[in-house]
Each structure stands twice: as structure tokens, then as C-alpha cells.
């Protein structure tokens, strides 16, 4: 270990050797230069003058734009993939069962107008190649009453949950979190939101009225309210959601920290469910599927997880467990899969069988009651521009899952290359084995091109 004095002396000597101006006790590196005499001044000329902020602008300057701000992002990539459905029984490099090349080009555009401190108008649109349509993702306006009650009306994201990979409390958004892309913004409904931060505290109260369609009856409005309370080092939340003729739903959330570990948890309780369960599948050739619903039973979902990151090590870990009370009981799920096989197996290979297998995939997707996800990611791995990550998603009810390690290297600003693999594991007829047509292994090579924000 070198001492700072030795280091300073070495740098000063280097500065002398390079004949930098004012070389005594001075060094320069890149654009950050440091000259002790200039930097610290002298005892007689110790203080300097620096431009101060104009009076009356504190806090307000960020709320007003003198022109409409337009921005967005463009994402471009091309990914080639090869998949072996069952590489462990017989593997040949050229024996892959499927391969593909997926070029992708997508964009988000937004405008942000802030003519005054009390008014904001924001909208964003998304489109992707082949540009069949451009979707309005957000369109809302912000206004407030006396800077105490803050309103937002329009199509907006409503994040009630605190979970990372799963969020049972996410009951207002139109989308659920994708565990493979947990940081993505979720699409929300058209709603009116009122937000009241309790003065003198960090407690917050939120009320919502959400609208499903431009043509509806007054009784079709859903109303919801949530309170967030800070208790020591924890933030606790509780909310209720109600719509006539729909299950009444309640949620609780908690998040806090234990040293550098962020911990979070959510609970969901509803009287009844919107879900439709498969109750029976008739054998071949009928294949008739029977369904059932439940408007009266209590359904609980719960989740807990952690997030840990160490910026000095460029390392982030995240893990979460989910209990889904709307999932099938293990015995019911296994029985239904057996019934599905009794219908599918006699069907001759072809489109009809593929269609039936796809129906089975829909049945098993998310059918368990216990799930877990874990990810580890590290940037600057040995090389400055090399990043690595690994992600595991598992159904703990049938012990199946998917492991996805990946490596990414930034070739230069604007282009990066990546290689990733995907391994499905589990027993026959378990969720991730059915979804992946076996204990599949996939390898993907991708190029990200020109992705960025403006």
C-alpha cells in the first residue's frame, strides 16, 4: 500500500518531469487538475467568490420549464438463439431443436410541459418494429390544491407494492412485474389520484378512482385508498380496493433496512377472486374442460425479499419468496396434468397436438403456490466493461425452475455484445419442464446497438 504522501510526491515528480506549469505540489490527470497552492489558496487569500442562487428560486426552478421538453429512448438489438430440448440424454452441437434470430427495435417518446409550478402535462408513447401501432403508455396532468393536496389525472402507473420480482400488492396496474425484467415500468389505468403528504412527517395518504373504459356506468368505477406510515426505520403501508360486484381487496406492505440490506414484504387478502380455475379435463377424444370460480372464499398472497448492493464491489444481490393462495393445491395440479395427458397423449403428432400442448402450458403457467427468485449481478468483472449476472426463477411447489446466467461486454459506447444461457430444471410435468418442452438448454448471442436516451 502506498501512502498518500508518497503518491502525491510521485505525481508531483511526474508533473515536474512533464514540465507542467506550476509544477510544485501540483498534478493533473485528465480534466481534473489539482494544484495545492491554487486549490487551498493562502492564509491571506483563503476564501473565493462563487455565484449564489437568485433569490426566491429555491425548489421552484425544477418545476417550471420555459419550453416543452421532448425526450425518449431507442433500443436496438439482434439476438441469435439455439435451443436443445433435452441435451442431457443425447447432445450434438448441430442437434438443436430450434434456432432463431430476433432483431428488435423499439422506442419510447415523451413530452413534458411545465408552464407553471402548479401545472404539469406529461405523455409518453411506445412503439416497436414492425410499427403496427404506437401505444399511449402514459398521459396525465398534475395539479394541486394549495400545495398540500396533489392530484394526477390520466393514464398512469400506480405502484402499490414494494416487491422486486413479485408484487401481490400490485392490484391497480394493468401489468404484473416480469421477474426477468423487474425494473421495467408497468402500464397503469386511467385514474384520478389524490396524494396528501401529512405535514411535518413522511406519512402519505393516497386515494384513487380508476376507470376501465371511456364508456361505463358510475358503479363501474373502482375506488382505492392507501396510507403509508413511517415507523422508526420501517415504512408500513395499508390499502383497500373496492368495485361493485368485484372481490374486496386489502393489502399491506413493509419495507426497511438492516444495515445495508433492504428488506421488503407484502400481503394481499381478498374475499373472492377474479381467477378462473380448471376443475376437470375430459379424456380423449372429448377434451372438454370444466372451470370454476370462487366469489366468497378468502384468498391470501404474501411475499418477502431482500436487496443488497455494494457499489464499491459493483455487486447487487436480490431474492424474493412468493406465496400465491390462488395457485392450485399440489394434488389438484398433478391430477389435472394427468387428466390433460389422458387427452393429449392419444392425439397424433401435428397441429392439433401442438395446440393441446400449448393449452397445457397455459394451465401450468403460474399454477404453483410457492415461488422464489434470486439474482446476482456484477459489473466491472475483471475487465472494466465486462458485466455478469445470474438469475434463478423457481416454482417451489414442484421444484422446477429456470437458471439464466449471462455475460455482457461493452465493445464501445453504443454497442455491446452479450452471451446468455438458459437451463430449465425439474421433473417431468413440472411447470418449467412443460413450459420449455423438456429440460431445455438455450444459448443466445446478442448485440445491443445504439441503445440510449435523449
Amino acid at each position, binding site marked *: *500500500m502506498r*501512502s*498518500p504522501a508518497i*503518491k502525491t510526491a510521485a505525481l508531483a515528480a511526474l508533473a515536474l518531469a512533464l514540465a507542467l506549469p506550476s509544477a510544485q505540489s501540483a498534478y493533473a*490527470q485528465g*480534466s*481534473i487538475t489539482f494544484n*495545492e*497552492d491554487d*486549490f*487551498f*489558496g*493562502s*492564509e491571506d487569500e*483563503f*476564501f*473565493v*467568490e*462563487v*455565484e*449564489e*442562487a437568485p*433569490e*426566491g428560486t*429555491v*425548489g421552484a426552478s*425544477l418545476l417550471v420549464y420555459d419550453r416543452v*421538453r421532448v*425526450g425518449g429512448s431507442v433500443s436496438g438489438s439482434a439476438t441469435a438463439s439455439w435451443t436443445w430440448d433435452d441435451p442431457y440424454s443425447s447432445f450434438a452441437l448441430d442437434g438443436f431443436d430450434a434456432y432463431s434470430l430476433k432483431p428488435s427495435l423499439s422506442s419510447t417518446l415523451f413530452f*413534458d410541459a411545465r408552464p407553471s409550478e402548479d401545472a*404539469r402535462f406529461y405523455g409518453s408513447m411506445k412503439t416497436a418494429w414492425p410499427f403496427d401501432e404506437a401505444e399511449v403508455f402514459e398521459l396525465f396532468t398534475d395539479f394541486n390544491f394549495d*400545495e398540500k393536496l*396533489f392530484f394526477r389525472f390520466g393514464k*398512469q*402507473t400506480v*405502484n402499490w407494492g*414494494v416487491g422486486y420480482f413479485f408484487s401481490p400488492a400490485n392490484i391497480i396496474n394493468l401489468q404484473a412485474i416480469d421477474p426477468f425484467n423487474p*425494473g421495467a*415500468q*408497468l402500464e397503469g389505468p386511467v385514474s384520478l389520484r389524490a*396524494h396528501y*403528504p401529512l405535514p411535518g412527517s*413522511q406519512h*402519505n395518504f393516497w386515494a384513487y378512482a380508476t376507470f376501465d373504459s371511456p364508456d361505463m356506468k358510475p358503479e363501474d368505477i373502482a375506488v382505492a385508498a392507501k396510507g403509508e406510515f*413511517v415507523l422508526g*426505520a420501517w*415504512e408500513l403501508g395499508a390499502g383497500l380496493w373496492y368495485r361493485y360486484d368485484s372481490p374486496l381487496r386489502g393489502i399491506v406492505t413493509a*419495507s*426497511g*433496512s438492516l444495515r*445495508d440490506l*433492504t428488506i421488503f414484504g407484502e400481503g394481499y387478502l381478498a374475499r373472492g377472486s377474479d381467477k378462473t380455475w380448471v376443475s376437470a379435463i375430459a379424456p380423449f377424444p372429448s377434451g372438454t374442460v370444466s372451470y370454476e370460480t370462487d366469489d366468497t372464499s378468502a384468498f391470501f398472497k404474501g411475499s418477502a425479499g431482500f*436487496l443488497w*448492493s455494494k*457499489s*464499491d464491489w459493483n455487486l447487487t444481490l436480490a431474492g424474493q419468496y412468493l406465496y400465491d393462495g390462488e395457485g392450485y393445491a399440489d394434488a389438484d395440479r398433478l391430477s389435472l396434468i394427468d387428466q390433460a395427458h389422458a387427452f393429449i397423449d392419444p392425439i397424433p403428432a401435428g397441429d392439433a397436438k401442438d395446440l393441446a400442448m400449448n393449452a397445457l402450458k397455459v394451465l401450468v403457467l403460474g399454477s404453483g403456490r410457492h415461488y422464489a427468485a434470486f439474482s446476482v449481478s456484477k459489473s466491472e468483472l475483471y475487465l*472494466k466493461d465486462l458485466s455478469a449476472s445470474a438469475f434463478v426463477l423457481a416454482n417451489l411447489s414442484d421444484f422446477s425452475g429456470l437458471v439464466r446466467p449471462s455475460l455482457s461486454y461493452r465493445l464501445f459506447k453504443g454497442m455491446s455484445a452479450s452471451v446468455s444461457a438458459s437451463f430449465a430444471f425439474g421433473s417431468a410435468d413440472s411447470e418449467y419442464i412443460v413450459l420449455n418442452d423438456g429440460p431445455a438448454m438455450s444459448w443466445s448471442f446478442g448485440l445491443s446497438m445504439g441503445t*440510449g*436516451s*435523449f
Partner: protein
Amino acid sequence: MKRFTIIALLALVAAGAAFAQDVNKILKDLDELGDFDNQDFSAVYTIVSQKPGEKDSVSSVQLFRRDKKKQFTMIVLLPEVNKGQGYLREADNVWFYDPTSRKFSFSSIKENIQDSEARNSDLTLRGFAVDYESSGVREGTIGSIPVWIIDLKAKTNDVSYERLVLHVAKRQTMLLKEEAYSVSGRLMRTTVYGKPVKLGDKQLPSQIIIMDELNPGERSQLTMTQQSLSAIPDRVFTKAYLEQVSK
């Protein structure tokens, strides 16, 4: 001779005790200099980060402080990809707002700012006198400024570094240099504080250079502008404000 030795030892002990009191006063003075107890403080910090073999990256944050209530709001102005990210801190609780996902989440105060060498704690209230105790003092100079060189050892685990060596200007009490060491005694970070400005009855550096000693050549320079002691509206220290100013 024996009597003389005892008197000399007593004198040394007494001088040491007096000096320890001086050191405690210097540490308290340093804490008070950075403590805007009854005033709000706001400023824009521009952070230039330099890593070998890479182009310099420039970040900019708007900072609001209300030390009386231990409140702190920081809004990222640059780079464009992170614009609108916001941090809200009250006491030990920190919320981070990500405009990309429109989500609030708790975040550790020890995290670095925008991938620079600077930590959030570099811009907030510090407590040398509370968190550390002196283990030695000597005299020295930085440039042409005579300084006290004070060795500090952490009293608590809630600090980023186990040991600090401070270089404090003698005539105008002002921190000019800080060396931060890990538990194993390894020099982790050197920070120099320069070009001080007077703001009301406070004095604070307008430039800070932070050198990562573990990764030679990696350094960040923080430059303060638009500093103000004007009152900050209460709404700035709310989640509502973080949402309002986000992109």
C-alpha cells in the same frame, strides 16, 4: 532526577489532556461549520468523474438540506439517462425515486452518487465529534497553509470508514484534506476540500476532489454553485416533490 521525570510526565499528561480538549473543540467546530442548524441550504453540485481509459463523465445534482430536521433531498440533473432520479432522506430513512419505473424504494445512505467516488454522506451533515475519537495529533502544512493533522478512530459501526486522518487549517478552522482507511488499515479514499466560500456565518468548500486509492486514477471532482441559505419550501422534502420534478 526521579522527581524531575515524574513532573515531566505529569506535564506531558496535562499537556496531552489539554490538547485532547483542543482536538475535541476542533472536531466540534468542523461539525458546526457543516451544520446549517437553523438555516436551509441548497446548492447545485457538478461531479466530474474520471476513470483511466474512459472519457470523463459529468453528473449534476440539485441538493436541498434542512439540518434542523435532518432532511435532505437530492435531484439528479445530469446525465440525461438518470435525470429526475431523486433521493429523499429524513433522519436515517432514505427514499429513492426511479422515474423509469415510477417506483419509490429505500436506499442505503452509504451508496455512491451516480457511479462517482462521491457518497451521499459527502453532501450531508457529518459528525466527526460524535462518530470518531482522536488517537493522535501533529502539525504539518498543505500548500502554504499550516494544518493540524488529526488521527481519528471510529466509535461506531455506522460510519463508512474505520479510521480518518484529517488535515485542518489552523488559523481558519477548515477541513482541507481527509484520508479514509478501512478496518484493515488500507487507505481507501483521499479527499481534498478547497476554494472555500463564506455563506452567512458558515464556510464551506466550493470544490472537493475525491481520489479512489484502490483504483489509481479514479477520481471525482465536486464543484458547488448556486449555493443559497434561502428558506426551502416544506414540499421539497416530500415524495410529492420527487414525483413532480421527475421526468
